[in-house]
């Protein structure tokens, strides 16, 4: 059930269900009320006629045709309304052609049915009841219907026996009356239902809009355009947003904490390693230099794995979008001091508005290692160029050093390869940079520079400009 997986679907479905149930109940109630109303109004006409007909019944059961009056539809020939009076002394009936036969219409066993019998009271209203008419006769009213006819009859006790006065109307009269009232009512109920449905859709649209806005906000957080969900939220969502922001804080803290741990671990390992290396450097302790090599290997391994461990976790949401130029400027300052002895000339061709989606520390790590490597090998010039290329920012670093052969370039990207026996550093720089680049959906390529040295091409995802 896909509809149940969405709030919109759930609300819409339940709303539709409730509206439908309400409309159905309302129409059932209205129908039965109208039914009763129609029956009562027909009953009133019939009873009025019965009251008139009763005048023709004498106390001794004699029937006098001259005393009979007709009112309403009974007076109109061809209306289909009819009456009969049946007593022990004879029978009178309306001049209209009528299929009315109380004996046939009121089967004898009907009298034995208990009061409240479903067939006797299915349309409600006064059915079998005893009433005293205005003329003083006690009358027992009864209703009944045939396929085409609806009638009401009253029993009048006379000295000679019971007289039955029956007045009837064609069934369609009552049905038409009911239908005429029912049609507009049902129509308005339907309009009400549709109206409610439309209102519900509009309400959902309006009510769920903050959720859509929240989703857009989150997307911006993920894209790194903003670090937290800061847009004002309706009160129902404030708690969710607060929790989300706390979660983001927590993530950031966890990364910072992990980095601090790694940093402490590095400190804890490297300080004794430094002491060891100094002690070994004392005359006579490590004549062949093999122990120094081991220390260099340990150091390289620590550097590599801790470098990996401190990298921003892959797929973590919201790599911030950071301007490239200032970080490169800072790195160039640092590197020109570290390599002050070589007095390297840096050429920086990086547009100020270039931004990449990357953890800032990881960017420092990649660019720092690559530039450091370039400085180590350069004869005197390092050129840094960056351009936007579609969805990537391509950073190119050229040096005018000896460069690398194709095989050496492949080997340089394998962790722990030492290409530079003379130069300090242990060959981890390039491989760390490549791993970090791939972690950030980028890439690292080594090739030959037009200046003759090594060209390193680092591609990183460009941040989406708002």
């Amino acid at each position: 059930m896909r509809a149940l997986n969405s709030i919109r679907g759930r609300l819409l479905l339940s709303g539709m269900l409730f509206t439908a149930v309400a409309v159905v109940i309302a129409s059932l109630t209205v129908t039965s009320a109208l039914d009763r109303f129609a029956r009562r109004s027909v009953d009133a006409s019939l009873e009025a006629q019965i009251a008139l007909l009763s005048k023709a019944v004498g106390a001794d059961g004699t029937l006098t045709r001259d005393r009979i009056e007709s009112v309403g539809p009974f007076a109109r020939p061809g209306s289909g309304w009819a009456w009969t009076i049946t007593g022990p002394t004879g029978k009178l009936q309306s001049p209209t052609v009528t299929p009315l036969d109380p004996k046939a219409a009121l089967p004898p066993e009907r009298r034995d049915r208990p009061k409240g019998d479903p067939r006797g009271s299915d349309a409600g209203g006064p059915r079998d009841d005893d009433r005293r008419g205005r003329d003083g006769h006690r009358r027992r009213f009864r209703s009944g219907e045939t396929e085409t006819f609806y009638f009401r009859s009253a029993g009048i006790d006379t000295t000679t026996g019971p007289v039955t006065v029956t007045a009837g109307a064609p069934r369609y009269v009552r049905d038409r009356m009911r239908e005429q009232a029912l049609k507009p009512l049902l129509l308005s109920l339907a309009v009400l239902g549709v109206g409610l449905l439309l209102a519900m859709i509009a309400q959902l649209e309006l009510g769920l809009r903050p959720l859509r806005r929240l989703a857009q906000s989150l997307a911006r957080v993920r894209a790194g355009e903003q670090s937290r969900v800061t847009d004002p939220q309706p009160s129902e969502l404030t708690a969710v947003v607060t929790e989300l922001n706390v979660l983001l804080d927590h993530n950031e803290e966890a990364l910072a904490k992990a980095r601090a741990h790694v940093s402490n671990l590095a400190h804890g390992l490297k300080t004794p390693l430094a002491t060891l290396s100094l002690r070994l450097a004392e005359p006579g302790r490590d004549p062949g230099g093999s122990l120094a090599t081991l220390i260099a290997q340990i150091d390289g391994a620590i550097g590599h794995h801790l470098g990996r461990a401190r990298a921003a976790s892959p797929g973590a949401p919201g790599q911030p979008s950071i301007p490239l130029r200032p970080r490169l400027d800072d790195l160039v300052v640092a590197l020109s001091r570290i390599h002050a002895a070589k007095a390297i000339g840096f050429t920086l061709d990086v547009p100020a508005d270039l931004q990449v989606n990357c953890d800032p520390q990881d960017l420092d790590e990649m660019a720092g290692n690559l530039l450091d490597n370039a400085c180590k090998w350069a004869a005197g010039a390092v050129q840094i160029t960056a351009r936007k290329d579609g969805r990537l920012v391509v950073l190119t670093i050229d040096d005018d050093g000896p460069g690398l052969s194709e095989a050496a370039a492949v080997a340089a990207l394998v962790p722990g390869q030492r290409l530079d026996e003379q130069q300090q550093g242990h060959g981890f720089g390039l491989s760390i940079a490549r791993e970090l680049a791939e972690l950030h959906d980028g890439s690292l390529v080594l090739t030959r520079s037009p200046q003759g040295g090594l060209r390193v091409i680092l591609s990183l995802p460009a941040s989406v400009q708002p």
Partner: protein
Amino acid sequence: MRILLVEDDGPLAESLAKALRNEQFAVDVAADGETGAHLGASETYAAAILDLGLPKQDGLSVLKSWREQGRVLPVLILTARYGWSEKVEGFKAGADDYLTKPFRIEELVMRIRALVRRSAGHAGPRIACGRLNYDAQLGGFEFDGMPLRLTSFEWRVLSCLILRKENVVERMDILEQLYEGDASVDSNSLEVIVGRLRRKIGHAMIETVRGRGYRLTAGEA
């Protein structure tokens, strides 16, 4: 030349101080950030080697406090934190160089010498004064093309003078580069050391400027 070493790890500080003294430097060791900050602010050093992870006051804030007080001594940060972001932080705080543990002592010494030389305003690694030559990278003196054998004290005085050759160097400045912080200073000993140096490179090269100090000169001026 006197170096301030701020390092909290005892064994490392000890080994490092020993190695630096082997290279003729006078070394003062501070085992925590507060002591380091105080020493660097109140004493005159040719350079400082500063660890970042220090008790009481961390290295970066020690460095910042020196720079805020206008101390221009060259500072080499020595740290186990190898990240480039941290390096950039260090340089922004005013560091002049950066070395990651573990390191080769030759590398460290070379970098310290280079820092001291550059802070004295010498671009190239070789400084000449008449027949005297100083290799600021390896720390060796040559006189008439022959290596000059010097004691630590002699080396400290001579390197101090040659870095500011043809200029008067105040007695006080030389003394500050001569003795480690806890050594008892005998003010007459400077005359003794200068006397020994004069016997090795000739009287004329080291001028006494009465009431002020000494000047190393090629002599022709």
